[in-house]
């Protein structure tokens, strides 16, 4: 029994180490290179800054921006990376000094990291609605620092908090229209990462978009996990299994709002198409996934629902640098291109006119997209 305990401990220790390394290798290109080039990165950023100040008329204000990602951090090819893109752009173009951190594996130190960033920054971001309560506390404790939260609505938020909200349902509506118009089987699918309010907005918009084109189209809907289990955002294997069953059940266009699990959908679309000789489509989410997914699967990505977290982060930093920061709710919807769809790959060029029609109707208020399924 004692031997067993010993063996068990060794296995546990290895599991811990493997988990740590696993986290690294997942986002190989990002975390490790970021780590490897950490010192170089900062110097590169510094030279970029100086270069920028030399060439263009960048505002000379020295703005420190601290950004706290949620669990997973940079390299999730989805939500966090979109925020990172906004920060990188601001670093290159505005000459701000960035600092990044990500919540620990159980997310229990969000408030600590916000406070830590607030000590050294003029503007602090929390990426994701889970930063709500921690940010309320941190922003109240540091009234001289400005804060920005992506996806978060904080009741009774102080004036130094900008709440950056997105009309995911509007973007999802448009890709729903695209799915309906491109589906030959009259059968489409939706895969959600975790069954919670935020992702239900994607589902609601998609369903409304599909049915706006044709009420008779069948829609399969499935979530990978239920809260409190958040694995659904990073479980490509399950994403693939669900996508396979949808394709085999007759769906020929499947939209995902499942973060990293979406890669499983892309794989399934490719494999099903290869095996059956009929092309089925996947629809990406958050960023233009034709550009971020692998070369072997990108030709199966019909379009992507764009959620411009990068724009919201960049704009807020710019306001801060210009001394124009304003707190409160900021909605990024179709009217400001805060959400939208991608055309890379050219697969939906023939229906862009229709999509733009629908877009105009939504912007004008003629069509109101529901945000709950």
């Amino acid at each position, binding site marked *: *029994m004692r031997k067993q305990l*010993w063996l*068990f*401990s*060794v296995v*546990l*220790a*290895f599991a*811990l*180490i493997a*988990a*740590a390394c696993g*986290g*690294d290798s997942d986002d190989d290109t990002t*975390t*490790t290179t*970021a*780590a*490897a080039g*950490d*010192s*170089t*990165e*900062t110097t590169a950023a510094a030279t970029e800054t100086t270069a920028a100040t030399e060439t263009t008329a960048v505002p000379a204000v020295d703005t420190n921006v601290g950004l706290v990602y949620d669990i997973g951090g940079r390299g999730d090819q989805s939500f966090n990376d979109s925020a990172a893109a906004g920060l990188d752009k601001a670093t290159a173009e505005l000459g701000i000094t960035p*600092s*990044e*951190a*990500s919540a*620990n*594996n*159980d*997310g*229990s*130190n*969000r408030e*600590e*990291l916000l*406070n*830590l*960033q607030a000590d*050294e920054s003029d503007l602090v971001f929390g990426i994701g*609605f*889970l930063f709500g*309560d*921690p940010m309320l*506390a*941190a922003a109240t*404790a540091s009234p001289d620092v400005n804060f920005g939260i992506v*996806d*978060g*609505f*904080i*009741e009774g938020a102080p004036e130094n908090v900008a709440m950056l909200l997105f009309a995911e349902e509007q973007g999802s509506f448009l890709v729903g229209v695209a799915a309906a118009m491109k589906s030959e089987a009259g059968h489409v699918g939706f895969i959600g990462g975790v069954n*919670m*309010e*935020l992702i239900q907005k994607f589902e609601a918009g998609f369903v409304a978009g599909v049915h706006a084109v044709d009420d008779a189209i069948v829609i399969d809907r499935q979530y990978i996990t*239920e*809260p*409190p*289990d958040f694995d659904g955002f990073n479980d490509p294997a399950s994403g693939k299994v669900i996508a396979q069953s949808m394709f085999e059940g007759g769906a020929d266009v499947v939209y995902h709002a499942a973060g990293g699990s979406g890669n499983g959908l892309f794989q399934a679309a490719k494999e099903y198409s290869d095996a059956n000789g009929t092309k089925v489509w996947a629809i990406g989410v958050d960023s233009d996934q034709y550009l971020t997914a692998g070369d072997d699967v990108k030709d199966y990505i019909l379009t992507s629902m764009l959620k411009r977290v990068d724009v919201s982060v960049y704009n807020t930093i710019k306001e801060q640098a210009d001394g124009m920061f304003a707190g409160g709710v900021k909605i990024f919807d179709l009217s400001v291109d805060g959400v939208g769809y991608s055309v890379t790959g050219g697969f939906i060029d023939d229906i862009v006119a229709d999509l733009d029609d629908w877009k105009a109707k939504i912007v004008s208020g003629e069509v109101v997209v529901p945000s709950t399924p």
Partner: protein
Amino acid sequence: MGKKLFYVLAAPLVAVGVALFISSIVLLFAGANPLSAYQNMWEFGTRLETLIETLNRATPLYLSGIAVAIGFRMNLFNIGIEGQYVLAAIIAAKVGAEINLPPILHVTVIIVVAMIVGAFWSGLAGFLKVTRNVHEVISTIMLNAIAVSGIVSYLLSIWDVPDASLDTALKEIPESGWMPSLNGFVEIFTRDIKRVELWGFILVAAAVGVAYHVLINRTRVGYDLRASGENAPAAEASGTDPKKMIMAAMLLGGAVAGLVGLPELLGDAHEYNLRFTRGLGFAGIAVALLGRNHAVGIAIGAFVFGWLDRASGVLEVRGDAPREIVAIMQGVIILAAVIAYAVVERKRREDEAAAAAAATAQVLAERQAAKEQGGAS
């Protein structure tokens, strides 16, 4: 005595040393400067606020470690702490939000509910082992999945209070059910604490630690537990019912596990929501191993793990290193500790065995002598 102290201290010190060494190599490979990383971590980690954060982190880790250790003492791998505490927390949070009682009573009811739920869920695994001989590792893993992905998911969906934010959260516990912060007490000795609060539940955790130590070392039940764990047949022969002991260990461990989520719930969140910290049940296994199932050892283990976790936030913010380095350090500490313990333990056992052999030989010789005497008369 000096030798005994050496046995106790050698292993953890070696473990931390080895961990520092290996982490330095990893940091160097990552292109970071280990010295500046450690220096930043030390400076940040010794701030009063960080130490308070560390204690807040260590409190649930400690409770989880004790819950695991109760099973370990009986040679039971109760790895179901995870499911037990998450289930206990959500039910306790719901009960706490629905009732309205005077302050101390309110908190007491929440604590008791959490302990009952934890004990019940853990008791299921004990029951399966006693009646059907199902190994507790299998049953507790299954029960974890059922609790977290099944029951808690379902309860979240039916108990969610709809509001404007995207968060899924239960109703808030009224203020009479909160655990007051200990900042006022700490500030008697220190400067004012900024922004963080020392959760009052640390007192409950300390009481649990004392109770655990007394129970295991000073009571009949504790003796029977340890005896069954170290040598089940011998314990049974001396009149200890192993089934009763298994149930006792599982129920007690589960009751303590039920407390793991409460420091956060009563001290900070005051509601069960999607932010509720999970994974503490598994972290507790590491802490119990590091602390060698000893009440004080587990406290040290919990503090070390808590400190590493909290002080490491500065690494990324200052651009020293990715925070994953901390997970590597924690893993290496356990690995090194386990190996160091095994080496020290073998040495101690050899010494003990030699002593026991000598003692046995003496007893045998005496018996032989007595027998001969009896035969003669």
